[in-house]
């Protein structure tokens, strides 16, 4: 009988305002999303937020209207004073002596002191969203009976429905049952039969990631943009503007493409594409792009612009092409490499016995290698496939550069050197250049305008400085001065440029580029027998394959599978195994990585925990305590010989569900005090790195320090505040890490990944301070260990900076042990 009841409930034609999740359709409980015009109820069902809030958060929509027959009639919720409509910042304040309340935004309207004179009581401001639902006097919460009778939609189903809506806005709950929606892609394997199977598994995963990336980029259009115009050094027009922060998933990077469109009526319609040349940083939240063409740009207009994100398929196309080539082209890699990469272990490990190892195991102008680095070098030179594991600070870049030098000396042929990120490529390029080899840094065309320490090695700049090509230079000059060439000249220019590029690339000893950069058509004709990939644990397998299929007979993967892996945004693809690097899989297959074991970065005290926990205690210290003690800096370390501590902050700010405590003002103010103390004692801002988990917290901290810190704003500006991921591969003298409150439900998210914790703990050279709440963190096994480590060292402290005392706080029991 009950079932029948339920069926009747669904088959009945529901009104427009019925909740798109559960079907509840009492007008008093109904709220419409103003962005997608779907209705939702204010009941939670079996989730921890009401359905409307579930929708707003998952779809990243922020504005709502109420029903005409609701508790509050037919109204768009907006601030009474400034008309802002984001419900996440709306709330209300009461009048002092009357039964009147007014709808106001938290900032700036409710924060005005003048309100008090108008008989309002701004201290009593309360948000419209409480405990992840709208206030019940505004939108009725359906009763228990109503909710039980409605469709029992789960959080998983809600997720899927929201995903479906991205493709088909009118999809309904029933479409969830449609075949295909739920299909999970095939999991990656440890071993593959052949290159075809390999392609058949990775191809669809790359496609999933590409689709996800495309959808994400294309949903980021922003309007009402005000533009500031400027002219770059190369006479190109640049546009600067501020984008609203819509989504933490979306990271804008140098070289990304944005399209600017003019919608006003002071100029005829215009749109132009440009490359990002500036992203939000400590010096300002502005984004800058350099336009591709100067023609018809409405530089006399300032507002009414729209910004679209331009999705480019290039990197995904290159990965797919590499997978295809690996499958069908037997000259893409040597037979040995082919079988080894596929995991055919019956192939014996090959050692190049004919190789004469050099007597001098080093390279000109680079530091002499230590023992473990020398072994790594020999190991790599003697094998067609080798893994070199470089824990933090163990001289991975110098070792790689020396290997490259010796490879060139040995083979005489050119070596291809890649890494997943441009920063890593630049670092390695710089070192290899020092050895005196002929190096070309190949950049994506979209990044040619971006300056780097090795700009002078970039192919496009080397061409500019070629001595014996007067005609090309003249044309180039003409192009730069006038912006545009005649079509005949353009043709000639391109031909000459191509020739010059070819000559330079063929003459190079070493070509350096990113992994996907290796798919550049300019390299298509070249063959590389020796390929070294640095930071290879940060690349997905298909990404690694892009350079490998250029003819590899010898592959050297440098990396550290105990540090962060590749970023895969599509959860489906990530779950299916795309986020496992080739390095990692080869380790699992039993290829032993050769580990560098002497670390030169951290104060020995700081290296202790990471060494024991992540590297089986194998890290030795190449530096002594005295080398890593800051001279002339007085700082109240709780233990003078141990420049580290855990600064206990309590979670009093955790106002249930309001979410505002997420910013953790207490931690921000602790971080500011620590930073100020360091700066006051003579530390330079550039020496300090502040690690915070989320983009929101980064922006808050930057702002907080610059406006609340007692010292000159400029000092705080020079400080680097970023996520763990942004610090990977780099170091700072001092690290302050703000863990940010994590509530009971949420777990500790980003910090529960052991590899991320390892990276966070190993960035500092002289000292590290972790600010956080041990009660919450200790629930996680790994953190529990770390906290006990700090406690044993008597560096788990609380209280004011000038009077730090050992904290007696009891830890929670760990829920489960990761790792």
């Amino acid at each position, binding site marked *: 009988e009950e079932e029948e009841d339920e069926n009747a409930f669904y088959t009945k034609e529901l009104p427009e305002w019925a909740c798109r999740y559960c079907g509840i359709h009492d007008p008093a409980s109904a709220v419409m999303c103003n962005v997608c015009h779907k209705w939702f109820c204010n009941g939670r*069902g079996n989730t921890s937020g009401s359905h409307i809030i579930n929708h707003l*958060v998952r779809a990243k929509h922020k504005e709502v209207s109420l029903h005409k027959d609701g508790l509050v009639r037919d109204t768009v919720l907006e601030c009474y004073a*400034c008309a802002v409509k984001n419900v996440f910042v709306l709330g209300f304040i009461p009048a002092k002596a*009357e039964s009147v309340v007014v709808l106001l935004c938290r900032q700036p309207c409710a924060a*005005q002191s003048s309100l008090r004179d108008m008989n309002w009581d701004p201290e009593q401001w309360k948000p419209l969203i409480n405990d992840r639902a709208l206030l019940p006097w505004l939108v009725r919460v359906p009763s228990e009976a109503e909710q039980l009778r409605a469709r029992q939609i789960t*959080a998983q189903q809600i997720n899927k429905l929201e995903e479906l809506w991205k493709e088909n806005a009118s999809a309904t709950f029933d479409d969830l049952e449609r075949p295909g929606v739920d299909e999970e892609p095939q999991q990656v394997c440890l071993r593959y039969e052949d290159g075809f199977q390999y392609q058949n598994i990775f191809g669809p995963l790359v496609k999933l990631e590409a689709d996800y990336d495309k959808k994400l980029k294309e949903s980021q259009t922003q309007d009402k943009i005000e533009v500031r115009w400027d002219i770059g050094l190369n006479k190109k027009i640049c546009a600067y503007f501020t984008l609203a922060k819509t989504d933490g998933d979306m990271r804008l990077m140098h070289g990304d493409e944005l399209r600017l469109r003019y919608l006003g009526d002071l100029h005829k319609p215009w749109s132009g594409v440009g490359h990002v040349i500036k992203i939000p940083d400590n010096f300002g939240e502005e984004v800058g792009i350099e336009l591709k063409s100067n023609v018809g740009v409405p530089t006399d207009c300032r507002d009414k612009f729209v910004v679209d994100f331009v999705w480019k398929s290039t990197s995904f196309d290159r990965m797919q092409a590499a997978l295809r080539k690996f499958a069908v082209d037997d000259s893409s890699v040597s037979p040995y490499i082919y079988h080894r990469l596929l995991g055919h272990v019956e192939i014996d490990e090959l050692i190049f016995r004919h190789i004469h190892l050099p007597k001098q195991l080093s390279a000109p102008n680079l530091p002499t290698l230590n023992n473990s680095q020398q072994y790594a070098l020999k190991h790599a030179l003697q094998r067609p496939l080798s893994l070199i594991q470089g824990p933090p600070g163990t001289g991975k870049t110098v070792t790689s550069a020396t290997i490259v030098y010796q490879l060139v000396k040995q083979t005489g042929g050119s070596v291809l050197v890649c890494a997943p990120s441009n920063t890593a490529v630049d670092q390695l390029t710089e070192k290899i250049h020092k050895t005196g080899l002929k190096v070309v840094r190949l950049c994506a065309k979209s990044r040619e305008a971006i300056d780097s320490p090795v700009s002078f090695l970039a192919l496009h700049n080397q061409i500019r400085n070629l001595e014996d090509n007067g005609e090309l230079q003249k044309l180039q000059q003409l192009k730069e001065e006038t912006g545009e060439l005649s079509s005949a000249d353009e043709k000639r220019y391109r031909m000459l440029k191509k020739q010059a590029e070819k000559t330079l690339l063929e003459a190079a000893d070493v070509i350096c580029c990113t992994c996907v950069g290796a798919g550049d058509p300019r390299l298509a004709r070249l063959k590389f027998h020796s390929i070294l990939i640095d930071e290879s644990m940060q690349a997905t397998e298909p990404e690694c394959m892009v350079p490998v299929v250029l003819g590899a007979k010898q592959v050297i993967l440098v990396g550290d599978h105990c540090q962060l892996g590749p970023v895969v945004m599509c959860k489906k693809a990530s779950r299916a195994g795309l986020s496992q690097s080739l390095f990692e899989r080869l380790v699992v297959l039993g290829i032993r990585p050769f580990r560098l074991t002497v670390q030169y970065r951290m104060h020995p005290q700081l290296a202790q925990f990471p060494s024991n926990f992540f590297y089986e205690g194998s890290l030795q210290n190449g530096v002594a305590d005295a080398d890593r003690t800051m001279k002339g800096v007085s700082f109240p370390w709780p233990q003078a010989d141990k420049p580290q501590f855990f600064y206990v902050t309590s979670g009093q700010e955790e106002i249930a569900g309001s979410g505002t405590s997420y910013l953790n003002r207490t931690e921000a103010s602790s971080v500011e005090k620590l930073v100020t103390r360091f700066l006051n004692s003579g530390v330079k801002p550039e020496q300090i790195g502040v690690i915070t988990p*989320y983009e929101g917290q980064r922006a*808050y901290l930057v*702002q907080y320090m610059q406006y609340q810190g007692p010292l000159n704003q400029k000092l705080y500006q020079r400080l680097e505040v970023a996520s763990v991921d942004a610090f990977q591969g780099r170091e700072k003298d001092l690290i302050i890490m703000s863990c940010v409150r994590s509530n009971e439900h*949420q777990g500790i998210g980003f910090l529960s990944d052991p590899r991320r914790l390892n990276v966070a703990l190993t960035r500092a050279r002289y000292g590290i301070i972790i600010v956080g709440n041990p009660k919450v963190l200790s629930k996680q096994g790994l953190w529990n260990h770390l906290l006990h480590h700090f406690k044993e060292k008597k560096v788990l402290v609380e209280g004011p900076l000038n009077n730090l005392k050992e904290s007696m706080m009891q830890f929670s029991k760990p829920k489960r042990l990761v790792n």
Partner: protein
Amino acid sequence: EEEQLLDGDMNVNINHVQCEEDNDFMSAFDRMMADSILERASAVPRPGQLDISVPVHIRSTAKKTYDQLLSEGTKEEAKPVVNFVFLTRSGNKQQYNSVEMPVDSELVTKLRTREEAERAE
């Protein structure tokens, strides 16, 4: 105890099911809240925007004693409510809605305390 849980409107969450998707939702909620607040952190009010005095014709209806409010707001239902005027806007138009606040809400309690204090004077 369960009884009490279902009593307050906010707590109708009968079959809460804990799962990864729900946890993700909670962190995404926190992030959205934090980002929204941050986005407004440096906003400054435009002059003249903040003249939000209580309109006179509302004043006469809204200025009642707590007891008066209570008697007119209470219906036969178990839960007594108090009528408040809720000022909102729609485009350039101001709107006045009557809303029912639970009698045990902080808002109502504060109003009563204030009145009692005034009376005592």
